[in-house]
């Protein structure tokens, strides 16, 4: 019994402590979209989450259309739900996106602290008022990068935000990195009614495409030309050597880095480089690593070049997925300069010069006195 009381006390302490330290306020739904029509009336139910079950919460409306909002209640205690009714007017003169804010605000309590806190959160109702005449907006995105031979999915969104219905000719032009148009995917003529939002999915087959970056342009012709674009990459099973250590020190164990970049849209495992310095018959392997799609990283290994000096031909062999990519390079091996010795020599020379001038000056003075 005594033990249970202790556990209960600890539990109660934690609850009370947490109640003092944390404060959270939430409101959902956070965002709603609605298309304007004259005298449109709609209702939403909002849910309020509040940590403190005794906290008073005010409900309010804000934004340019706040005057058209009413609530079934204006106060809550410790969370709950409330209903919002919006009765839009006959006309909203300014076309475009209008914002109604639905807010809930904690009423500050009587805590005795120098600085207390209060939270307010606001959800948004966007009201879209159509533009006069024909007005379209468009966007395009892809399902992501692919590997050679895999399909690319284009997602095209065309929104009619004008008051008139339109017939639009829609197509997607695919361009290479150099700007050359490769092909056009025609989606045909589409009827899009006023305030209608359409999404079109299109598949691009990439069997005949070379690996590399591409650009896709959505072209919507509805009397006017509307364009939107996106980019994507087609991966090839190739890892590029982008950089490497160019200079090594003799009589020292040197760190050698090989910078690599994946051109492949899948993960590659167990990648390593082998570096062979010709003529002096030295070689080493870097540690093996994995490479995420399109990732750039550095492979590192260590090499002792003994007392060799000069410029030597070498080859970096990059091993991955059963493939070996080679790059011919030159490596310069130099002797390490002893900085301390140079500084000491410099100081010595400076001291000798100083003493020399001091002696010359003294001799001149002695001559003058005589």
């Amino acid at each position: 019994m005594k033990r249970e009381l202790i556990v209960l006390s600890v539990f109660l302490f934690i609850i009370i402590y947490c109640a003092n330290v944390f404060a959270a306020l939430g409101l959902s739904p956070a965002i709603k979209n609605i298309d304007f029509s004259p005298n449109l009336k709609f209702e939403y139910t909002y849910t309020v989450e509040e940590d403190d079950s005794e906290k008073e919460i005010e409900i309010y409306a804000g934004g340019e259309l706040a005057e058209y909002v009413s609530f079934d209640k204006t106060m809550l205690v410790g969370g709950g739900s409330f209903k919002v009714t919006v009765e839009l007017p006959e006309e909203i003169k300014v076309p475009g996106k209008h914002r109604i804010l639905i807010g809930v605000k904690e009423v500050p309590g009587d805590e005795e602290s120098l600085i207390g806190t209060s939270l307010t959160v606001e959800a948004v109702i966007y009201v879209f008022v159509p533009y006069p005449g024909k007005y379209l907006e468009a966007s395009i995105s892809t399902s992501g990068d692919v590997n050679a031979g895999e399909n690319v999915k284009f997602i095209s969104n065309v929104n009619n935000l004008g008051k008139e219905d339109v017939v639009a000719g829609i197509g997607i032009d695919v361009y290479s990195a150099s700007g050359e148009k490769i092909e056009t995917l025609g989606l045909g003529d589409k009827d899009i009614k006023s305030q209608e939002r359409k999404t079109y999915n299109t598949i691009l087959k990439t069997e005949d495409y070379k690996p590399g970056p591409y650009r896709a342009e959505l072209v919507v012709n509805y009397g006017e030309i509307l364009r939107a674009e996106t980019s994507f990459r087609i991966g090839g099973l190739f890892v590029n050597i982008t950089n490497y250590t160019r200079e090594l020190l003799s009589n020292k164990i040197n760190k050698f880095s090989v910078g690599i970049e994946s051109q492949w849209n899948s993960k590659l495992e167990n990648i390593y480089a082998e570096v062979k310095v010709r003529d002096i018959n030295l070689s080493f392997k870097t540690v093996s690593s994995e490479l995420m799609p399109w990732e750039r990283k550095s492979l590192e290994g260590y090499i002792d070049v003994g007392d060799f000096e000069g410029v030597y031909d070498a080859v970096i062999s990059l091993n991955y997925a059963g493939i070996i990519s080679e790059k011919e390079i030159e490596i310069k091996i130099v002797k390490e300069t002893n900085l301390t010795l140079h500084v000491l020599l410099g100081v010595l020379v400076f001291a000798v010069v100083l003493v020399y001038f001091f002696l010359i000056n003294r001799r001149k003075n002695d001559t003058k006195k005589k």
Partner: protein
Amino acid sequence: MFKMRQKINRVIFILTIIAAALAILNVSLILTKSPSLISLTGFATSTGTVNVSIEAVVSINFTTSHINWSYGQVTSGQTSATLMTDGPSVSNGNWSTTGVSGLVLENIGNVNVSLKVGAGKTALELLGGTDPIYQWNFTEVVGEEGGCTNHTDTNLSLTYYDANASIGVCEVFNYLNDKDSIRIDFKLVIPYNSLTGIREDTITATATAI
């Protein structure tokens, strides 16, 4: 007769053993094959779809909701005391720093928000006296960098500015877990001739869904 009965008993005994063995086999089959009973029994399968609608929530919290330096006074002979939550520290006064820290505000919803913060009082209203200071700064929480795109009203920095009625802090305040917090620290300079008694102010954080 006795031998006959003995034989019957033996047969019954053997049958009992067989029955028990079959029962054990049956139980073990049920236990081991229960997840795939459909394949054992030829149970027909069918597929269905699951529809889930996830509502967007705008939600924030103060992981520390109060700052309380308790009771104290300016050291005799000094013109003012300085209290800071960053540290925390108190100089030229005997207020307690126990449990005092800056406020940490977190976006715990599942949408990005814009964030405004406001103080209820000015330095003169809160503290009174000669040249009181009531200032704040907004900084990134270590390990949660990059979650707050600066608003044109202010910069995220250690520099203190006068607390005011409403200031835009984040144009976009991210909800992703590793970048959803900012810290608010305070600097108070309490003059020797300040107002006395319990002095209080409320900091209001307003998050609007975007």
